[in-house]
């Protein structure tokens, strides 16, 4: 049963299950960036919000390896390796991105569950 109340769609509360079942339009409407990755790290979901905030068109991101092609700044043990190594993950990390080469502090939520084939990164600026 999908609850649609605003609190449930909150950055720190939304569940992986919910993200998997939301429509593309609903994902795009969320106020934070949403990136969905396959187990191999290939970008399967790249929300409209994220695309606008990062300044990158979704076409150039979807189907490529997220941490090698798009988000090199997160390709370390704090983010990329954690998503790889840990079987289950639901954590919020303070991070800094490099939007147009300027330090951009963000909050990052990492979501991974054994029963879902996709992991998610939620990016709140």
């Amino acid at each position: 049963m999908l609850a649609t109340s605003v609190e449930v769609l909150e950055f720190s509360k939304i569940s992986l299950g919910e993200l998997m079942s939301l429509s593309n339009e609903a994902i795009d409407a969320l106020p934070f960036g949403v990136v969905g990755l396959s187990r191999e790290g290939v970008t399967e979901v790249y929300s409209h919000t994220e695309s606008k905030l990062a300044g990158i068109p979704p076409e150039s991101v979807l189907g490529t390896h997220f941490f090698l092609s798009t988000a090199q700044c997160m390709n370390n043990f704090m983010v990329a390796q954690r998503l790889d190594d840990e079987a289950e993950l639901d954590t919020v990390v303070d991070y800094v991105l490099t939007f147009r080469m300027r330090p951009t502090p963000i909050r990052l939520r990492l979501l991974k569950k054994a029963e879902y084939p996709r992991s998610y990164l939620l990016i709140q600026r």
Partner: protein
Amino acid sequence: MSAETATENELLLQFLYACPVGLVEIEADGAIGMINPLAMQLMVPLMRPPQGMNFFDIMEPYAPELRNLVEEFTALHGEVCSNLRIFISPGTKQSGYLAHVLSCTLVRLAADRFMATLSDVSKVVAQERRLGEAEVWFSSLLDGVSDFAVLSLDAQGLIDGVSASALRQTGFSNEDLLGKTLDVFDSPTPATSAVTVTEQISLACRDGWYLIEGWQKRKDLPADWCQRLIAVRSEEGEEDRTVTGYTVILREVVRQKHDALELKQMLTRDHLTGASNRAHFFEIAGRECSRFVRYGHSLSVVALDIDHFKSVNDTYGHAAGDKVLREVSRRCMVLLRPADTFARVGGEEFMVLLPGTDLRGARLLAERLRSALENMTVSYGNEMITVTGSFGCAEAVPDTSSPAPLMESADRALYNAKQMGRNMVVLAVAGEVPGE
């Protein structure tokens, strides 16, 4: 903006995104302007709130000298440092015993504009280490050598073989040398800071070789400036290697502007204080841990942090803080033995490696250091600055194959010392295992 300019901008951005080297643009005080993704990838794991986006603050625990190097760089353009090795952490089981090392080059572009490049060179360093060990041996022999003397020592360190060139070079005869120790070449009243022959051999056993430069006594001839290389000969036994003897090579050298000793110091010492640097400490600690696992002699570490150091800097300025760091180092180092290693491992954090010392011995030493700091006054201008230090002691437990857990234990004990009021020595709790 026209469509062409927009596309051009996009291409430029992508070019920068693809750059496999970290790039950071900073001001003279370390404030970060622009930074590329790879630099961020390398730096975010090093950040500790409440640091802001300041390059020197972020690097302070690992390369505190960066700030000093920039401050001392008076030219308006040029290279402040090139491929400076920054040791982030020693090798652990998880990292496959690969130490985490970054390389940093800093260039001044204008009065208040610098560019730093950052790369991860962990693998390169590991490889160099393996190659370097063989190279030191050869380069010291092949370097414009005209004549060198070779001696053999038995496992007890007594001379049991002498080459003709050794007799020629030193003026001694066979009878003068056989059965004696290397002390026969040393002046009867060596400088108080000189490393004794026993210590030289002990250090050779630790590292596989030992190189020293100094005055060498000759028979009926004035003393000579010589390089002495002591190399260990050993045999692979059933359980481990046993030392079967030593080969000593003596080489007369023209005293260069930069002695081998000076060069060694430039690579292993902290720029500001003269203490060992972080890299050298990790290296020595790694070797002592191997010896600890093999031979079982005790091994301890003392972690020391100057109390309220930040307020010294804030009250009296960075130059005064630097003087305090130098004085602290000087006072501590005179209280140690040659086999001990005193290193500056962070901005105001030091570590002492104590081979052959148990926890009780470490505590006694730490108490001596604590007292020395408490009774120390550093004069700066008209000010008399006093500081105290907090100390954490830890002893290596069986199976400590890497220095990381030992250092972490000492650090935790140090943290407790701070929590309990500072200016004290705290021992690590036995059996406490470092958390994740």
